[in-house]
């Protein structure tokens, strides 16, 4: 009886989760695995956001075409996140600029933050998971 009540209360807690993406797609499995975990997290009705910093900004580059690579092009999935109520995508401006990218190069609508704003956003989180 007590256990049941605890579980109910536990289920009602909504925490802020941020998934931090720092790896380019395809060269390693991190970007794809991170995306899978984000999709799974949507089932738990938490307050989920994604941060893209360092080489993670390359995950959102438009025009990815993996036909001759024999790997799945998973970039369209970022556009489907909205359907899972994952709408908070933050991209660090400095990381984009260092790589010659602009917001127009990205395949999905994002919020561009400068480094200090991104740091503040991270500080707000209850849980950070890094890929």
């Amino acid at each position, binding site marked *: 009886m007590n256990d049941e009540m605890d579980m109910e209360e536990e289920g009602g807690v909504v925490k802020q989760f941020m998934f931090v993406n720092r*790896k*380019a*797609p*395809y*060269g*390693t499995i991190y970007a794809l695995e991170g995306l899978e975990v984000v999709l799974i997290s949507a089932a738990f009705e938490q307050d989920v956001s994604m941060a893209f910093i*360092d*080489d993670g900004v*390359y995950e959102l*580059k*438009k*025009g*990815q*075409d*993996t*036909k*001759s*690579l024999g*790997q799945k*092009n998973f*970039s369209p999935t970022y556009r489907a996140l909205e359907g899972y109520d994952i709408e908070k995508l933050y991209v660090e401006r400095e990381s984009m600029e*260092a*790589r*010659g*990218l602009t917001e127009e190069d990205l395949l999905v609508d994002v919020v561009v933050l400068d480094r200090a704003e991104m740091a503040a956003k991270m500080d707000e989180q209850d849980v950070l998971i890094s890929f």
Partner: protein
Amino acid sequence: MLHIVNKSPYERNSLESCLRMASKGSAVLLIEDGVYGATKGGSFEGKIQAAMADVKVYVLGPDLSARGMADRVLDGVSVVDYGGFVDLVAEHSNCQSWL
């Protein structure tokens, strides 16, 4: 010597180490995440351009396309396909992979 680099220059120093060691007349082939090193507009552009005075730089096309970077290859860098990769290995007496 053919040098092969498969890491992003923004994440690892493999390309930088490679360029430091690559002697005049050698070739550098960028593959996998290494292809970002051959793209325009980034902070690594100047280093690659400086290196091209002494070494020939190649980049693997399929890896560029996968990453949506095929339309922003630096001038002077040659794009090769898998067959071109094989040719490069065959043409050079030895090769070094910078992991």
